């Protein structure tokens, strides 16, 4: 028995070492940083231990703005993108001709570079001295007031960010949901037909429960992904996100480390751990809810 234990540990050693050095230790280090007050990275010195960093971050208006932005982004994009992806997948599943073509088209954004897509969105939405941008032209064409989506009011910028995020995360969800729908045994639908189940009931009572594990997976990863959003905002609003008022939590962490006002690893660590706590809480809630509603 003893000998076997030793063997087992030996087999586990490479993975444990790797995970320990590159995952557990940095996590631990972040925790340490976040508790060291007045840490100076040049002299590697600090003058106290406590929760001051957290207090500072939580009172920093930029951080609060970033939290507000991030939460809005999460609450808007996760349900919307999952819902729309479900609709698209149902459509894709229902058609026979050209299904592969459409699947490819819907998947294209996934293989496109985020920054390149951001550029295209800028062209679509940005107002310049020469043009109001395609979207504004269309709004005017329908008799509306043009809006500056990139440098304009907060809601307009938030709209672009959400629109962009949904557009970027959609293809993966469509891909997952189409394959989930295709893997539902057609016999269940035949059985439902024999039982005279109306369409809506078939959808809610059979289709949804059958693909619920996949939906759940998409919601969880969607939440985590949206909480960690950063590059999307950069692609649209440039690197000075604080000035644009469109910073995200991860953006705030980055700014605290390397931005023009950077050089504060302790504040960055504290912010990162707050994000970690938020994501952990939300994921736990998700898991609790899923126990009731997800059928495996």
């Amino acid at each position, binding site marked *: 028995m003893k000998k076997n234990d030793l063997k087992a540990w030996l087999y586990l050693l490479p993975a444990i070492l790797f995970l320990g050095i590159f995952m557990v230790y940095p996590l631990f280090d972040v925790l340490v940083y976040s508790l060291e007050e007045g840490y100076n990275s040049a002299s590697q010195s600090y003058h106290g231990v406590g929760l001051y960093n957290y207090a500072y971050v939580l009172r920093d208006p930029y951080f609060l703005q970033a939290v507000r932005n991030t939460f809005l982004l999460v609450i808007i994009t996760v349900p919307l993108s999952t819902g729309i992806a479900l609709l698209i997948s149902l459509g894709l599943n229902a058609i026979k001709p050209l299904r592969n073509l459409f699947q490819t088209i819907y998947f294209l954004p996934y293989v496109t570079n985020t920054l390149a897509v951001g550029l295209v969105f800028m062209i679509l939405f940005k107002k310049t001295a020469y043009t109001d941008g395609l979207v504004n032209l269309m709004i005017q064409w329908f008799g509306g007031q043009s809006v500056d989506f990139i440098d304009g009011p907060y809601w307009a910028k938030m709209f672009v960010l959400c629109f962009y995020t949904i557009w970027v995360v959609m293809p993966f969800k469509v891909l997952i949901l189409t394959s989930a729908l295709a893997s539902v045994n057609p016999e269940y639908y*035949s059985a439902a037909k024999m039982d005279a189940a109306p369409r809506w009931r078939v959808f809610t009572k059979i289709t949804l429960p059958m693909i619920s594990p996949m939906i759940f997976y998409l919601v969880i990863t969607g939440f985590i992904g949206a909480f960690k959003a950063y590059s999307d905002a950069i692609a649209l609003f440039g690197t000075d996100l604080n000035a644009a008022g469109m910073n995200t939590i991860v953006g705030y962490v980055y700014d605290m480390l390397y931005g023009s006002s950077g050089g504060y690893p302790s504040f960055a660590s504290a912010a990162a751990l707050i994000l970690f706590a938020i994501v952990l809480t939300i994921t736990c809630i998700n898991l609790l809810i899923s126990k009731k509603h997800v059928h495996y």
Partner: protein
Amino acid sequence: MKVVLDHLTKRFPSRTKKGDDVIAVNDFCFEIPDGKLIGLLGPSGCGKSTTLNLICGLEPPTDGKIFFGEDDVTRLPPENRGVGLVFQNYALYPHLTVQENILFPLQNLKGENKLSKQDMLEKAMQAARLVQIEGLMERKPSELSGGQQQRVAIARALVKMPKVLLLDEPLSNLDARLRLQTREEIRRIQQETGITTIFVTHDQDEAMSISDMIVVMKDGIVQQIGAPQDVYDNPTNLFVATFLGTPPINVFDAKIKNGEICIGDRAVMPAPGIRDQDAVLGIRPEGFILDQNGPLEMKLNRVEVMGRDTSVVSTHPASRNAQVRSIISARNQVDKNAETVRFSLIPDKVKVFSVKGENAALWAGSLESGRAHEEE
């Protein structure tokens, strides 16, 4: 409710552009009497499951009509036909409990047929009691054994009191012992409810043992319809003869000469009233009698003792099978070391078929009764 199939045909278009259409069911005519248990029997790919799908409405027929009683239901969607279908893999909704599964069809009822919650529960309980699963109502299908799942599937199909119950290979997913038990169960449920029931199987034992009538199919064409024993005793063609019976019938090339059936040069049996010609002889394994002076001499391979009876495995040059298997009573002593073994034949168990096409019985039945049909 009687079910009438009138020239029912189903053609599937070929997958390739040049290939021929596949005719899964070809001109099926049959009137299923009310309240009977019918076995649709045939090798896989013979169109029996397609026939079932046509009856329940999951597939539209290419041609022909289906009547339930006097009503033409050919164009009716499945939900309006009043049929219950038990799928081969049961298709129980895995996320619902047994009770919810059985309730599902009832909850779909609309308009004046709508039931109160209490009535629904009562009906579900009734159906569950009929198949004896009332103690499992709160379980999920994954927590049930195969046989229990089967019962739930039957209960779900029965809960709406269908006019016709259809079962697709109901026993194929069960082990041998459960299969015996379940087929009795199906028979019992059918008799208790009196619902016209059609079930599909490729297992002739299954079909013969519980059906009131069996329909033997091959390549989409009905070969023979009749009571199990009748079909076994008087097969219309060689296919039906070889398909029914375990061990299968032994097939010999034979000749009819001067009113006698000859295998090789030896006359083995009289065949009065049949003109001289080449023929094919089918001899049921139980049609052999050990006889020192019997006309049929075979090379003995081995003797298998199976307790109740003895199986003699031998070879004969005129046999179409590699081995001839005959079953004799265990009381008979067979010399295992003998080179040859001799048999005489029981006339009832010998079937004669024509060589051409081999599908018309020249002559079937006992010699004594002299029932002989001359082929055209």
